[in-house]
């Protein structure tokens, strides 16, 4: 049964994904939830919580208010806090019980915006999806609402889809900037580590967008629609970085989008070598390794869109499906938490992923060939 997990943890959920995406942008994120979402987020899904102030709150929803539909308390509490703390925006997130009761978040946002004069929007979440959905929707809202019109400049890009869930060390984020620099590009903004909301608002000045994780795809599409900016999907890894740099230039020149992390890979055939994880990063690592390790199959355990994957890749939701996808593998590249469901004879190359193993990913020693 694909809902049951004997031993594999679950990935970060959509609400945490939204919070992570918006963490550094000066807004106020409010999760309409009784209690657990905020603690889960800041304990297991957020590396910046201890020493960096960000306005992420829960409403502390109680049974009586949920049953009686007392949304006024939410409105009053959000308005009070917003007038006191003066955030740049207010984002509301859903959770299972308000989802069941059909709370109209878009209407609540309109009321809150009118009362505070602060832009308010709903990030479509309900606690039942993974972080790709939550972070993706949050970034898309920023792209839709806050990016100003502007003329693109040559050799300027936005890095899109950057959260600690996929890039959990400052070195990894710096490597993205270094790659852009080496490829001859100026970084207009990084969505959303190290860039402010004002930086993101200038994103129309980029001539191309680099989507480094699936959380950045929706926003890149919004910018494509609004400004015609092409996007290139891939993460700079090893030898694949050169391919990616060339794809950026090609996209800038032609105005066409490109998916090198998917398209430059050779067909993976029998699945004897598999990489499990977020599909942009996994596809990029597979592309980087294919000359030495042969073609690899990407096993995607997340809610990504079908076009993220090649025909030889596999979407596998849940422990049972992933176990089946790995059944014939002799080489598995994955977070160490996958070890118990890898075939006994398979070799595991450790590729830590914060969105799966949380704080324990820092104790995992990454295979040096995967950087």
């Amino acid at each position, binding site marked *: *049964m694909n809902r*049951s*997990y*004997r031993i594999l*943890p*679950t990935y970060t959920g959509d609400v945490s994904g939204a919070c992570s995406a918006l963490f550094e942008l000066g807004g106020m994120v409010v999760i309409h939830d*009784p209690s657990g979402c905020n603690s889960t987020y800041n304990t297991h899904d957020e590396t910046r919580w201890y020493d960096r102030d960000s306005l992420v709150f829960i409403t*502390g929803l109680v049974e009586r208010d949920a049953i009686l539909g007392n949304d006024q308390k939410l409105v009053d*509490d959000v308005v009070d806090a917003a007038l006191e703390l003066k955030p740049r925006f207010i984002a509301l997130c859903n959770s299972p019980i308000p989802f069941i009761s059909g709370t109209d978040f878009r209407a609540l946002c309109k009321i809150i915006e009118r009362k505070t004069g602060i832009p308010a929007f709903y990030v479509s979440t309900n606690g039942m999806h993974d972080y790709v959905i939550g972070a993706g929707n949050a970034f898309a809202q920023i792209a839709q609402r806050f990016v100003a019109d502007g003329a693109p400049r040559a050799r300027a890009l936005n890095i899109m889809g950057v959260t600690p869930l996929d890039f959990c060390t400052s070195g990894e984020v710096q490597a993205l900037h270094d790659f852009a620099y080496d490829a001859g590009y100026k970084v207009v903004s990084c969505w959303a580590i190290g860039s402010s909301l004002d930086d993101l608002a200038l994103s129309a000045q980029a001539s191309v967008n680099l989507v480094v994780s699936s959380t950045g795809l929706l926003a890149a599409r919004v910018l494509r629609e609004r400004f015609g900016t092409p996007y290139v999907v891939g993460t700079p890894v090893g030898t694949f970085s050169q391919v990616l740099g060339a794809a950026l230039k090609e996209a800038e020149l032609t105005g066409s989008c490109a998916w090198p992390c998917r398209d430059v890979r050779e067909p993976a055939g029998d699945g004897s070598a598999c990489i499990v994880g977020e599909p942009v990063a996994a596809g990029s690592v597979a592309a980087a390794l294919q000359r030495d390790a042969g073609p690899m199959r990407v096993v995607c355990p997340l809610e990504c869109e079908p076009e993220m994957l090649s025909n030889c890749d596999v979407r596998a939701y849940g422990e049972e499906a992933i176990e089946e996808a790995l059944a014939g593998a002799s080489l598995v590249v994955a977070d160490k938490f996958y070890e118990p469901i890898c075939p006994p004879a398979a070799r595991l190359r450790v590729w830590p992923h914060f969105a799966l193993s949380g704080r324990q990913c820092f104790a995992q020693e990454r295979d040096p060939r995967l950087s």
Partner: protein
Amino acid sequence: MLKRLGPSVVAAGDATAPELFASKLEFNPPAHGTWNIVHIGMLVPEAHQIYVCALNCMRGVVLTAAEMGARDRFSCVILKEEDITKGKVEEVTLRGISDVLHKLEAHAGLPPCVLVFPVCTHLFLGINMAHVYRELEAEFPDVDFVRAFMDPISKRRLIPDQRLRKVMYDPLPACEADPRLVALLGSDFALDPDADLRILLAKGGYDFRSVHDCATYDEFKGLARASTMLCTYPGGLFGAKKVSARLQRRLLYVPSSFDYAEIEHHERELCKTLGIELPDFEAQRALCDEALERVRVVLGSAPIALDAVAHPRPLGMARLLLEHGLNVTEVYLDAVNPEEADELSWLRDHAPGVQLSSTVLPELRVAPRVRDRKTLAIGPRAAWFCGTSYFVNIVQGAGLWGFAGIRTLARLMLEAWESPKDPQDIIPRKGFGCPSCF
């Protein structure tokens, strides 16, 4: 009318109980040492936990187990949107738990006990969990199914951990009582080896046990033989009452306290009930006074902040320290424990300037977390809010009890004052005192 120093702080002299602050949005400080329901459930030896909930809710509990190094004792069933919209939550719950158990059986064998945690969703949809348990018990007759719950939305009633400290003892069977066996129920922490209760019971020739002493599930069930049951932790009292009533055992509620008179009262009650010789209370008091005087000499007028995470009697702790000449300036708590009404009253009269501060209100997210003087914190939240490296790292009262507990606290205060710790490394760790990968 409540006079506030700020929206999130009130002077003790102006405070009213039990609600100190209005309900508003909440943030969550990064101090996670308090035990959650996963930590508590893991106390039952050989038991396996199965949670049934949505992905985002699952994340916190599944990684709690992982950080305990106990992934092999935790499984889950994920609820999806279509389960709700198509009315399949009950079916998925039953089939999912059954499926997990078949997988466990194939890998390492069935556990003797399974703690099942449905969630708020089950509550709101009126899921017939009685039916689910009937089916599971028919399919797995050798497994004890414990009816736990993770429904934080029900916070106006008993909170989930209070109910867990009841249902985790439901497998204890009715049996003949052993008149020389005393059991401790409802405490997440084992009592310290030198805790007064242990010493008194040993002197009286009693065998004293708690879940912490049980290596196997059968040993755990053997706690049912205790003729006298003790409870020292307020969060465990509901469960201890229910269990002792079901098993028809004597229950003594002897909460951990910082009030000499209250400690004496509890010890007298225990000794009278069990026929144990009374200790020398005067000597005990004198030893505590000496220990606290040593602290006063070293700390002088240094500010002390403490929190309700460190101990369920933070106001009593503050009173004890103030009465011994120490300078308690801040207490972090969001409500007053009803058992501390007298302590609040004392603070109001004798230390009206002590600041009582919320730990969750929104403005605290951006409040300065530095103090201009070297500050001693007792408890992880106080340490974080004060930005101090000098802190006593205890939660939920740890194993402190009685006069020995007060002396232990004094020793920990001196150690903390002399040996700074890295708060960023320590404070965010979950479940202090539990097994941990960190």
